């Protein structure tokens, strides 16, 4: 299945560590999104790329969160340094430019202790 692939599925980090989450979008998609999902806040946008260019980064997350898209088929989200409040599911999603259908990965569940 050529959906959105996220690795790892689970990550446990100690406070202060640096972690890198990975995402492979659907082949051919040029929009890529990173979201953080928690029960309280729901889905919060972290970063949005179009054709590898950063279009939007969630302002509140700028200081410790950095998403990169080095090529059209791979993106990373770095959290440095991690804090316990970063514990959440991180979702990567992609779509074709102009499409309203967004394809989501299964997410990475991050636990920071």
């Amino acid at each position, binding site marked *: 299945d050529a959906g959105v692939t996220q690795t790892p599925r689970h990550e446990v980090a100690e406070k202060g560590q640096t972690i890198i989450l990975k995402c492979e979008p659907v082949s051919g998609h040029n929009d890529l999104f990173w979201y953080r999902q928690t029960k309280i806040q729901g*889905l919060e*946008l972290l970063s949005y790329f179009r054709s590898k260019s950063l279009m*939007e980064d969630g302002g509140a997350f700028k200081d410790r969160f950095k998403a990169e898209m080095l090529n059209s088929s791979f993106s990373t989200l770095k959290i440095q340094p991690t804090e316990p409040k970063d514990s959440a599911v991180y979702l990567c*999603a992609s779509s074709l430019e102009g499409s*309203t*259908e*967004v*394809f*989501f990965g299964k997410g990475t569940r991050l636990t920071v202790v």
Partner: protein
Amino acid sequence: TQTVSQSDAHVTVFEGDSVELRCNYSYGGSIYLSWYIQHHGRGLQFLLKYYSGNPVVQGVNGFEAEFSKSDSSFHLRKASVHWSDSAVYFCAASWGYQNFYFGKGTSLTVIP
């Protein structure tokens, strides 16, 4: 400010009942609306979308949604739910081919 709100955090119904999950959005202009479903422990999956034309759109598994400009709404409905419809449902909106804004989700529990 562009926002999407889902007024009900939890909805519980019995199997065979009809259900309506509410979604309202702020901000006018050209809008793309969609619904996603997330089963426990899984990623979000696309259900249906609206941009223009017939305000009632059909999705998978008997779901439909109706766009109302006057009410700024895009409610999701199903005439007869099945226990497997138990999941969290997210409404999303996009203005001008840009970022998607999601509601906080409605958790639907269907009692067999």
